[in-house]
Every structure is written in structure tokens, then in C-alpha cells.
């Protein structure tokens, strides 16, 4: 395959002479710095670069830009940097670049998958929907795995992405999308009028269509030179940011536009400090859309052979990259722009086999110029098929009416069906496109945002008009946003080309009724025949046609195919194009890497990690940690040789025999302060608070209006106007929001101030018979005797010399304290308590033991025993509802008929018949384990543990009519047999509760 670089045309193109060697499928080639992979391959005579998605047909390079549907390759920088589906027309080469073709095995030239092409009549539109329906079970086991293995183009990278990606917010007065003639003019005008401007373009070199429009002149010099000078001037202006290699891919509300900048993909050895890509999130006062137009291919039989490409692409390869795409080039066109390509090639010494023009008689300037150069022009003719396998070798031409076919040998075939304005970003801005009958194209219609389209994307064809429009738009946008009055000087001496006209749909030979493979969508292998079939099978909306055929659904989003598909559907439906409709344009305009979207929010930076002040101590002790929301919590503290179960058994025993220390700092804490604090608490919690004495605590339940439990926690009254409220660890932010909501919007007259104090206080629970003895030597100024400070009381004083809010409370059923100290002293106080605890053989215990100890006492955990559908009655917490209260959140919900009905699930205990069997949390409970599936499910296990203190397993469950089932035998069916259980009360240990009081 590797020929010498003989397609480079001396004297043509704008690249330098610095060589860059690269490989494609293992073969070495030479390119020139500034080449894209596509131009470098073409310079080496390589057209075959890929295999098509469905039929594995040999495919070449169609375009010279972002719209490329065919030339998708894998770029392998190193083992962890393999990027699939890179468009060869966008990827710039660098020395050592390694590209590999896709979707072929064993090689590009000999691909076993090509059998699909021979069998292609089988794979018509809707093939998958129709074929893999039967037998039903085969889908999961056979069809889906096979199809998944065969489907897809590139191969996803198999190692973590080692690159980093950055994200920036930016603001400007005027954002210009697209750096062609229109964009450059708009940006220049806006900048000269005093605006802050951002100009972005997807190409490495700005200039847009001027890359190929060789004849265009501005200020009496080649328009390309004018453009480069203008860009240099813009880049030197510190109020202007010029972003090459940057694609505007998403246009969101209020002129918020997302740009993806490719920073290092074109560099041989990027500075590791640079991000691979950068996401710009720009908020612009005004947006100028100058996104140009995309040339359409002709839809005829076998229009997809390598070597068949857009005329403008061939012209770009010649005029910009200095590459001739063939030696003997045919042209098939429906508009004048392809003539310019033929003329440029002819002048550069390439033979033009013939220009086949579908129009009956075309006698424009370009046509006459072509004739004058001795090019054969066949007006009123069509290419009806092509020859060649891995590269086009001939075109068969006949009159559009009838007549004999004439086969003309070619090694490349250029085509142009006209130009489609790129209204993608305009449409994403929620502007409405309107169909222009005269030019048969969709143009920006009704605007939804402060933006304006200019140039080819606005349907403005001539360069003179484009520049005038763009200058006016840039100037106006600047004046509107800055209030300035300066005007920008307009360039003189402008002349250019205009590319109006063309056709939509199929050409003669591929019309309705034919069965040829005339491709509409190259990337998804959709032919004109497929679209007609879809319409015949009842898809009358273009949205249905699109989904049934997958036309326009590939990663190129139908940039070349949408209009053809629409026209073909409209023809079969017998409707005009606007009444068939246009499919919706969605972000992203071109594929964007996950890395760019994710930015730095990965790994450790994906989500904040919260650690308590006592975390370092627990870590030093070798604690195992578990994630609870964003918190790291000590799970258990294993000693040498202990597994989790042994550690938890020991911790639970130790707490009840002597004492244990537990880090409860993650508890949510809110201070409710103000003259109306008690009144506010009455509203937010079910319990009565007005009469709670200062210095006492109460277990509070918070409901939603529907009567279901929302949160719970112990609340201490520090003063008549000050409550220290605790919430669940995970519930703290939502409880705070809930409280603020009621305070601000329903009870704004209450004089209350809410403060989150979760992170201000470290909390050390000291639990167990010896807990008082442990804290006693360290506490100052508080009488902690049982008489002075009974269970459920709170005092302020000092411990270890620092302020404390000392709670006498228990989540274990033992005598216990919760020592609140300012967070900065958390670890010091913990260590002091730990030293005291050592005298009594106390242990540190983690969240697992905390769970077991509270379950032994039947204390619920909101979110474990409750799931948002559990009322206080269901949970056995009727006692916590103030019966005399006239109002609290949830009071009406509790009276709802469903909540007071019989048959609700109620919290009960379960004991397994075999005391050693530990049930699985979440397991279902049934009355008759022999009932055929689906069984009648009575409830489920919410908590289940081995209790070393009880000597048997314990479980809590929500069970239908649970409290009426005490003593009943029920079953918990499991895969290896049903487990027999007995319904019990929820308190398994010390049911009298004597230990609480010491």
C-alpha cells in the first residue's frame, strides 16, 4: 500500500516542509507538519481507511472537516491513551502518530465482516426490530451478546485515562462561533467597537471555507491572507481571545455556550502539565453564529467507494494541504461549486475525466471556465454506478432521461449536491428554523436568544454580502453590550464565489423503485431504499423514519445525510419538505470526551470526603471505616487476629460489661434559638416542647406533611430560648432545609434563628455501666450524679478544661453520656477519655457495634427501619406524639384513611428458630413457605444481627398487622430453604430498661 508521497503537488498548499512520520495499520508514511491524518494519507495515495458499520463496506475519506462520517480511526499514543472513532479529517498528525483502522478483521483489505455486504438484502431497515423477536429467550442468551460483540465501531480504551482535563468559566460581550470569513469579520467589528470578544473555531487554522476558496479576494489580496492578518490582529488584542481547535458543542439557555478546546491531541510530546482538553463555559452578552455550511454528497448507486468524496474536500486537500486526491478525477454535481474544484485540480495538473452535471444546461462562469480549460462537461447526465472494490475505479454515466451507459475510468470522484447551512447551534439555542422554498434549505427563522446568524449558516451566499452582514452584526452586538458608539472600518476590494443551488434526494438510477445501494447516511449505512421502506412500513413522521432507519443517528448526527433523508421521505410521502419536518438538533455538535465533561471531578475529587476530628486516632488504632454519605466513619476496631464478627462481638460485650467510646461527631446538629424557639419546635416535631424543662432532653420525631417519619434525634433544651437539636447523620442538610422552609415561608413571624452546628461540635459517646466513672475526673462544674443529672438531661460546663455540652443519654440502653466539645478539641478530649476508659477495660466501638447495640434495644434507625412510608404508629412510636397538640407538620397526614387503616406494616422483632441463623436484611416474610410463587408477602426484615449479648440472632421487621401477630410462627424464604421465625417484641435486651438509669 505504501507508495511514495507522490500525491503532494509542488507549489500548492500552505503547509511548510517539516516532515512528520506516522503509521497507519503498521505501515509507515510521511506527512508534513500541519497535515491532518486524512490529508497525509491522501498525500500517500491511501483512500481506504475504514469499514462501514453494518455492511463492512470499504470506506474512504468523504470530507475535510468535522462532518466526516467514514474516516474514523483509532489513535494510539500509548497503551493507556487509545482513542477510538477519531475523525481522520480532524486529527492533526505529529511525528510518531500511530493510527489503526477499525471495524475490520483480520485486515482492512480482507475483512471477514464483508459477508454482511453480500447478505445486505437481509439487513434492511428495522432488521433488528423484526428479526430477533423469536424465540423470546434467545434474545438475552444468544442474540444480544452476539450483536453486542459485532456492533460498535472503535474499541473502548481498557485502561484508566491518565490525562487530566480542565474547565473554565468565561464571560464576554460577544462570542463568535466559527472562524471563517464571517466569524473573523464579526469578531473584528465587535473588537474594534470596544467589546470583549471570544472567537472559537474547530480547525487548527482559522479561515473556514477560505481554506479552499482560492479565488476569493478581500482588500485586493487573497482572502486567506486577509484572514490570517485579521486573526493575528485579533490575537494581539488583549480584549479578544482566539480559540483554535475549539468546538462550540452546546448552546444552552441565556447565552450559555459550551466549548471544547483540544489542547494536546496534536502534539508529539505534550507538556504533562497541560490538560488534554479544556471545557469553556461561556456566558456571552451576544452570540454571533458563523458556523458556515456543509456540502452534501450525491445519492447514487455505490456512492460510498473509497476515492469518492465531497468536491470541497478535494479542493481543501489541494489548496490548503497541497494534495491531489487522484490522478484522473471525475466530478458529479448539481451545483457550481464542484466546478471550482475541478478547475483548481486541472490547473494543478490533475486530469479531470469529466464533469457530470445533473442540471439540464448549466452555463455559468464556472462552467465556461471549465470548458475553456478543456474539461468535458456532461450536462443533463448522471453517474448511475461506480466500479472498484477498495478504491473507485470507474463511473458509469448516462443521460438523466435514458440512454446508454458510458463507463469512464477514474481514481477519484468528487460530488456536490449543494450546501446545507449549519443551523445546529442556532437550533440548539431553541431558535426555530424556517424552510426557504426558493433555495430549498432550512435557515434561521425565529430567534429565542440574544444571538444572530451570519454568513453561510444564515443562507448568505456571496462573500461580499457575508462580510457586510458579519461586520454589521459584530458592530451591533458590541454596541448593545458595551453601549459604545465606535464603528468598525469595512474592508474594500471583496470578491468571491457563491455556492447556491443544488439538489436533495436521489439521482437518476437510484430513484424510487430501484434496489441499488445509494447511501444517504454513510456512518450508519442507511440507503435511500431503507428510508423508502420505512415510509412504506408506516413511519410517516421524520422522527419515526430516523429511529427506524437510524438515519442521522450516528456520531456525525447526520451532518451530510439529514436533508437527503428528509427529501427522500417527503417524496415517498408525497408531501413537501417542511410538512415532513426536521429532526431536532441536540448537543453535542460533535462528540465530546467524557474527560472534558467530567474535568477534575473524578477520583478523590469526585465528591468531598468528610472526616471527624477523631478520625486520625481511629486510623492509628487500625479501625476499619465505612462510608456513610460523605463521611468516613469508624466501622469496627479489630484487634490482632479478629475478623469483623469477632471484633463486633467483643465490642458489644465490652460496652454492656464495662464501657465503650464511640465517635458520634457525624450526627447532624442544629441550634434553634430565639424567643419563639419552643413554638417552632412544636411545629416541626410531633412531641410537646413548651413544657420541656431547661436542662432536659427529649427524643423527637419529625414528620413530613403526609404523616411519614422524616427524621429523628435527641433534642436538649439549653435555655428557654435555645434548643440543641440532633438529626440523623445523613439527614442533617435536608432537615435544615425543611426547617428553613417552614420558618421562612409558613411561619415567617416566628422569632427564631437556625444555625447548623454539625461541624462545630465533636461528639464522644461514652456508654456502659462505667461511663460515669470514666468522665467524672475530667468534668468540671457539672454535678453528674444520677440524682442531679438523670437519664435524658443536658448540662453545660467544662471537660478537660474546654467547654462542653454534656448529654446524659443513650443509644445503647446502657447508662451513657454524649460529650459535645468544640471540634478542635475533639481528639484531645477523646484521648483523655480513652486514658480514663483504659482503667476500666473500656473499648472503642464502631458503627457496626452501635447498630447491634441499638437493635438489641429495638431503637430504630431512620432510613433503615423506615423508608418514607412508615408512620410513627407503624414504628411503635405513638408515645412520641403530643396528643394535645393542635398543630405540627404531619398532624393532618397522620389522620389519612390509609394511615389509620387496618393491615399496615408494623415494626416487630423476629427470632429465628435456630438461634444461630442470622436473617438477611431485606428478606421477605411469608406465612406459608409452600405457597406457589408469587407468595403472599407479609413484610420484610429491616435489621438483622448476631447478638453476642443475647446469645442468639436478633432481627427487626416491618410486618403486616405485626403487633397482632406476637408469638406467631412465620417464614423467611431464601434460595436454600425457608427459615422459621417467631414474631416477638422489638426489645431483646433489658426489656425493663433498668440499665439506662444505672
Amino acid at each position: 500500500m505504501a507508495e511514495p508521497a507522490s500525491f503532494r503537488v509542488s507549489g500548492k498548499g500552505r503547509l511548510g516542509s517539516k516532515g512528520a512520520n506516522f503509521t497507519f495499520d503498521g505501515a509507515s508514511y510521511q506527512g508534513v507538519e500541519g497535515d491532518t491524518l486524512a490529508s497525509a494519507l491522501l498525500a500517500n495515495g491511501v483512500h481506504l481507511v475504514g469499514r462501514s458499520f453494518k455492511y463492512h463496506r470499504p470506506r474512504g475519506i468523504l470530507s475535510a472537516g468535522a462532518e466526516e462520517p467514514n474516516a474514523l480511526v483509532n489513535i494510539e499514543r500509548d497503551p493507556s491513551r487509545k482513542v477510538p472513532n477519531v475523525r481522520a479529517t480532524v486529527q492533526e498528525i505529529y511525528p510518531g502518530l500511530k493510527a489503526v483502522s477499525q471495524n475490520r478483521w483480520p485486515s482492512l483489505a480482507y475483512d471477514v465482516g464483508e459477508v454482511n455486504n453480500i447478505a445486505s438484502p437481509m439487513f434492511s431497515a428495522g432488521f433488528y426490530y423484526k428479526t430477533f423477536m423469536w424465540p423470546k429467550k434467545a434474545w438475552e442468551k444468544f442474540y444480544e451478546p452476539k450483536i453486542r460483540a459485532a456492533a460498535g465501531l472503535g474499541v473502548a480504551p481498557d485502561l484508566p485515562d491518565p490525562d487530566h482535563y480542565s474547565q473554565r468559566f468565561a464571560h464576554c460581550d460577544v462570542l463568535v462561533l466559527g472562524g471563517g470569513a464571517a466569524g473573523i469579520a464579526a469578531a473584528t467589528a465587535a473588537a474594534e467597537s470596544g467589546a470583549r470578544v471570544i472567537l472559537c473555531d474547530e480547525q487548527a487554522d482559522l479561515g473556514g471555507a477560505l481554506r479552499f476558496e482560492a479565488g476569493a479576494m478581500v482588500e485586493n489580496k487573497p482572502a486567506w491572507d486577509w484572514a490570517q492578518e485579521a486573526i493575528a490582529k485579533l490575537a494581539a488584542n488583549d480584549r479578544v481571545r482566539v480559540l483554535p481547535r475549539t468546538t462550540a458543542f452546546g448552546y444552552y439557555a441565556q447565552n450559555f455556550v459550551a466549548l471544547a478546546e483540544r489542547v494536546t491531541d496534536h502534539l508529539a510530546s505534550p507538556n504533562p502539565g497541560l490538560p488534554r482538553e479544556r471545557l469553556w463555559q461561556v456566558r456571552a452578552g451576544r452570540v454571533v453564529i458563523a458556523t458556515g455550511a456543509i456540502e452534501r454528497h450525491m445519492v447514487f448507486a455505490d456512492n460510498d467507494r473509497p476515492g469518492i468524496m465531497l468536491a470541497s474536500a478535494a479542493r481543501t486537500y489541494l489548496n490548503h494541504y497541497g494534495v491531489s486526491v487522484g490522478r484522473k478525477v471525475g466530478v458529479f454535481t448539481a451545483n457550481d461549486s464542484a466546478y471550482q474544484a475541478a478547475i483548481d485540480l486541472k490547473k494543478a495538473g490533475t486530469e479531470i475525466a469529466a464533469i457530470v452535471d445533473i442540471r439540464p444546461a448549466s452555463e455559468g462562469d464556472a462552467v465556461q471556465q471549465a470548458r475553456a480549460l478543456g474539461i468535458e462537461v456532461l450536462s443533463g447526465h448522471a453517474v448511475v454506478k461506480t466500479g472498484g472494490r477498495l478504491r473507485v475505479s470507474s463511473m458509469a454515466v448516462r443521460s438523466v432521461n435514458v440512454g446508454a451507459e458510458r463507463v469512464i475510468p477514474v481514481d477519484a470522484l468528487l460530488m456536490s449536491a449543494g450546501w446545507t447551512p449549519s443551523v445546529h447551534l442556532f437550533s440548539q439555542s431553541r431558535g426555530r428554523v424556517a424552510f426557504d422554498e426558493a433555495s430549498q434549505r432550512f435557515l434561521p427563522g425565529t430567534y429565542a436568544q440574544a444571538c444572530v446568524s451570519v454568513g453561510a449558516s444564515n443562507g448568505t451566499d456571496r462573500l461580499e454580502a457575508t462580510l457586510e452582514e458579519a461586520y454589521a452584526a459584530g458592530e451591533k452586538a458590541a454596541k448593545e453590550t458595551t453601549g459604545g458608539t465606535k464603528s468598525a472600518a469595512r474592508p474594500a476590494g471583496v470578491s468571491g464565489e457563491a455556492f447556491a443551488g443544488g439538489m436533495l434526494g436521489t439521482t437518476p438510477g437510484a430513484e424510487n423503485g430501484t434496489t441499488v445501494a445509494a447511501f444517504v447516511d454513510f456512518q450508519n449505512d442507511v440507503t435511500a431504499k431503507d428510508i423508502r421502506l420505512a415510509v412504506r412500513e408506516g413511519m410517516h413522521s421524520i422522527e419515526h423514519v430516523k429511529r427506524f432507519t437510524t438515519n442521522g443517528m450516528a456520531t456525525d448526527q447526520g451532518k451530510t445525510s439529514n436533508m437527503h433523508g428528509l427529501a427522500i421521505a417527503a417524496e415517498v410521502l408525497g408531501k413537501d419538505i417542511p410538512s415532513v419536518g426536521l429532526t431536532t438538533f441536540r448537543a453535542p455538535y460533535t462528540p465530546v470526551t467524557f474527560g472534558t465533561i467530567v474535568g477534575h471531578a473524578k477520583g478523590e475529587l469526585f465528591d468531598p470526603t468528610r472526616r471527624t476530628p477523631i478520625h486520625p486516632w481511629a486510623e492509628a488504632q487500625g479501625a476499619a471505616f465505612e462510608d456513610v454519605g460523605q463521611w468516613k466513619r469508624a466501622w469496627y476496631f479489630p484487634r490482632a487476629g479478629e475478623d469483623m464478627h469477632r471484633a463486633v462481638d467483643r465490642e458489644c460485650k465490652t460496652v454492656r460489661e464495662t464501657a465503650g467510646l464511640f465517635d458520634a461527631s457525624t450526627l447532624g446538629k442544629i441550634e434553634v434559638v430565639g424567643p419563639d424557639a419552643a413554638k417552632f419546635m412544636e411545629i416541626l416535631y410531633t412531641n410537646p416542647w413548651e413544657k420541656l424543662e431547661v436542662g432536659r432532653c427529649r427524643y423527637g420525631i419529625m414528620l413530613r406533611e403526609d404523616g411519614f417519619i422524616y427524621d429523628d434525634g435527641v433534642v436538649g433544651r439549653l435555655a428557654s430560648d435555645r434548643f440543641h437539636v440532633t438529626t440523623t447523620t445523613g439527614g442533617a442538610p435536608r432537615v435544615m432545609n425543611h426547617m428553613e422552609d417552614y420558618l421562612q415561608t409558613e411561619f415567617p413571624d416566628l422569632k427564631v434563628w437556625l444555625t447548623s452546628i454539625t461541624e462545630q461540635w465533636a461528639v464522644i459517646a461514652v456508654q456502659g455501666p462505667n461511663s460515669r466513672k470514666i468522665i467524672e475526673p475530667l468534668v468540671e462544674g457539672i454535678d453528674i450524679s444520677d440524682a442531679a443529672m438523670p437519664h435524658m438531661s443536658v448540662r453545660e460546663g467544662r471537660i478537660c478544661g474546654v467547654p462542653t455540652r454534656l448529654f446524659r443519654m443513650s443509644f445503647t440502653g446502657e447508662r451513657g453520656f454524649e460529650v459535645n466539645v468544640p471540634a478542635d478539641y475533639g481528639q484531645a478530649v477523646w484521648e483523655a477519655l480513652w486514658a480514663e476508659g483504659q482503667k476500666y477495660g473500656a473499648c472503642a466501638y464502631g458503627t457496626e457495634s452501635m447498630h447491634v447495640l441499638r437493635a438489641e434495644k429495638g431503637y430504630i434507625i431512620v432510613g433503615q427501619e423506615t423508608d418514607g412510608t412508615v408512620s410513627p404508629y407503624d414504628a411503635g412510636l405513638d408515645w412520641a406524639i403530643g396528643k394535645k397538640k393542635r398543630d405540627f407538620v404531619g398532624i393532618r397526614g397522620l389522620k389519612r384513611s390509609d394511615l389509620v387503616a387496618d393491615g399496615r406494616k408494623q415494626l416487630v422483632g423476629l427470632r429465628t428458630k435456630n438461634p444461630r441463623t442470622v436473617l438477611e436484611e431485606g428478606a421477605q416474610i411469608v406465612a406459608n413457605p409452600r405457597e406457589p410463587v408469587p407468595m403472599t408477602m407479609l413484610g420484610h426484615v429491616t435489621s438483622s444481627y448476631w447478638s453476642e449479648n443475647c446469645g442468639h440472632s436478633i432481627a427487626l421487621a416491618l410486618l403486616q398487622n405485626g403487633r397482632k401477630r406476637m408469638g406467631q410462627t412465620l417464614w423467611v424464604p431464601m434460595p436454600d430453604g425457608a427459615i422459621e421465625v417467631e414474631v416477638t417484641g422489638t426489645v431483646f435486651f433489658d426489656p425493663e430498661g433498668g440499665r439506662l438509669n444505672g
Partner: protein
Amino acid sequence: MLLIRCPYCEEERPELEFRNGGQAHIARSTDIVQESAEAFERFFFIRDNPKGVIFERWRHIHGCGRFFNAVRDTITDKFHHTYKAGEPQPDLNELIAANEDRRMDEGRGDMPADQGPGSWANVPPDQINVAEPAADASKGDA
């Protein structure tokens, strides 16, 4: 990302600072315990889901922390108006009429936030910044 004007901070801030709080102007009864089942159902369970203008609550949770109300078009995401909690529900027709009368100031610095880019939804580009927009300019497709 939307820009939302906080009526307490009196400026537009990015959406990241806010949290949506559901439909606005649903008052909790002062005697809720006596509400009928139907009234309670309307109060707690039934919400509008319009294609068009919605009155909704937002909280400037990562800013001043205040709840406020907004009038937003669910089709265009355009905010017609934001106002403090407790203020009466504005009349939609008056609001739209008032928006039509507004003009953009010359200076950027003192451009009222509700006349920023978002307030120009559905205005054709040639009528943006025209002192007297055409009579039907702002009707749009909402």
C-alpha cells in the same frame, strides 16, 4: 446553566447557587387538622405541570439562604420575574405587558438583571435593542 435573579441579593446568580423548591403559592392551612381529605389531597399531592408558565419556589441555598418565588416558562426556561416569599402572586398578563414595555439601558453596568440576555427570548434579532419593538415581538411561541 440558568441565571436566576435572587430578589433578596438583588442580582443574577448562576443556577449552581440555587435549588428548586417546587410549585409556589400553596399555602398551608392555619387549621390544617380540620382540612377535608380532598382539601389535603390538593394541598399535599396535587401539583401543576404546565407546558408554559409556572409559579415556583427557589431557594438561594448557596447564597443568602432565602426562599423566593419565580415565574418561569417551562418551554424556554425564561424567568419572567422573581419576587420575595410572601409577596402576592403577580398577574401574568400584567407581567408580560410590563416586559414588553421595557427597554435596555445604554450602559451595561446598570442594565437591570431581568433585562439581560434571557429576557430577550423570542425577539427576532433585528428587533433586539430596537427602542420600540414591533407590537408582536415578544409574543413568541410561549
